[in-house]
């Protein structure tokens, strides 16, 4: 397995953090060009209950908590 060292980790994190800025500079889409986003398959359809369940399953199963929901490991003894 590839081992990621702290310096590489910070670099990767910095790269991912700049993605929103890159995204913000993307093509401007006018309101009349947004038909694709009304397609039902384009909906990020997870409900709060589904998110809650996914958060609990993954956080109690894996060492990495965060990025799903808001708890990042708090609030649960999780078995």
């Amino acid at each position: 397995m590839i081992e990621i060292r702290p310096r590489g980790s910070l670099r990767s994190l910095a790269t991912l953090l700049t993605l929103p800025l890159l995204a913000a500079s993307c093509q401007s889409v006018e309101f009349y060009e947004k038909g694709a986003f009304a397609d039902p398959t384009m909906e990020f359809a997870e409900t709060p209950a589904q998110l809650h369940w996914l958060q609990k399953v993954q956080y109690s199963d894996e060492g990495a908590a965060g990025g799903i929901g808001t708890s990042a490991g708090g609030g649960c003894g999780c078995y």
Partner: protein
Amino acid sequence: MLLITLALAVAPQVSSSSTPRTFTLPNDFGEAGTGSIEVQLGFYDRPDAQGAGNPFLDESVTVIEPIVVFDYNYSDTFGVSALLVYDNVSAASIDRLSYYPEQSGASGDWYIGADVGLRWKTSDQGSIGARAGFSAEYDYQSIHVGGDYNWERADRNGKLALSIDAFIDTVEPIRFDGTTDADEDRNSLATTVSWYQILNERTHGTFGATLASQSGFLATPYNFVVVDAPGPPDPPLFNGANGTRQEEVVPDSRLRYVAFGRVRRLLRPGMSAELGGRFYSDDWGITAFDIEPRWINSFKDGKHILELRYRYYTQGEADFYQREAFAVAPTGDATQDSDLGDFNSHNLGATWRWQTSAASRWTFSVDYSLRSDDLDNLYGLVGYQWSF
């Protein structure tokens, strides 16, 4: 002006749910008097064959979780929501306590939690939210407060979400040998920033980062590490190994860094593809990464939606993790918790969403995870959401 008005009237509107949800409470706005009720039953099952995960510990768990989420728009600028959850847990970690009569009344198999949220639309582009909650387990209590700020670009092409959540937890450390130590504190503070963006006419996505700090008692109370020693332990270890046991010890603070993103693109009407990923690092030495492609297809004009997904997850071990028995008794941090070990997993999942009417939707979802440490698991849910 007439043309613009006409264009606005016929242009497809992007629903608020087109943006990925960040919170486990609803935070969308709607017309006064509208809302929704969501009922869901989650299930999780992890059998433990001898030698899987921690070879000395039976880590089998089965959980059934009913949950109810209520949401109501008191006005078009103010809404309330509530979440109630109960877990029925059957776990080897609880069964182990039956070895010790003095703990028979303290062991339990339940979790209950409640959260309430309020949200205000402060302007055409901005909103704020506040939430609070409480949860309790047989050996764990938690108080939660949190808040968020959301801002949307005027052209609706981008949306910023900032959130901060604090958890003030109390742990009753019931140890592996049945002894109970004095209550300990565990405090967590997590802040997340995420940005939703329409990237082009057929693609949108979200990117974000979470920074979380935890302090206090962070060990799993009943966990132990095995020190190689002659003679059979009492009670016997899971795989019949020899050895003596001592408590798991982990650092009393933890700083987690997470970056995540997902991008979805419409391939053709009724078919989309998504690529998601997450990178994680913490000061316990764990680094983790996952990548998750999805394929989403609709049938019968969107009445049925099928999502198929695959997730690859890999993590490195914590600095103080060791799978094998310790040759000599460790004097510092030491764990054999498989969650903190080195493993990867392949997860296959499917979700079927059935829109039975404009106001009601069923969701059926199942996932199977194949782990390199053999702690495979199956989980899923059945949910129903009714909007009024």
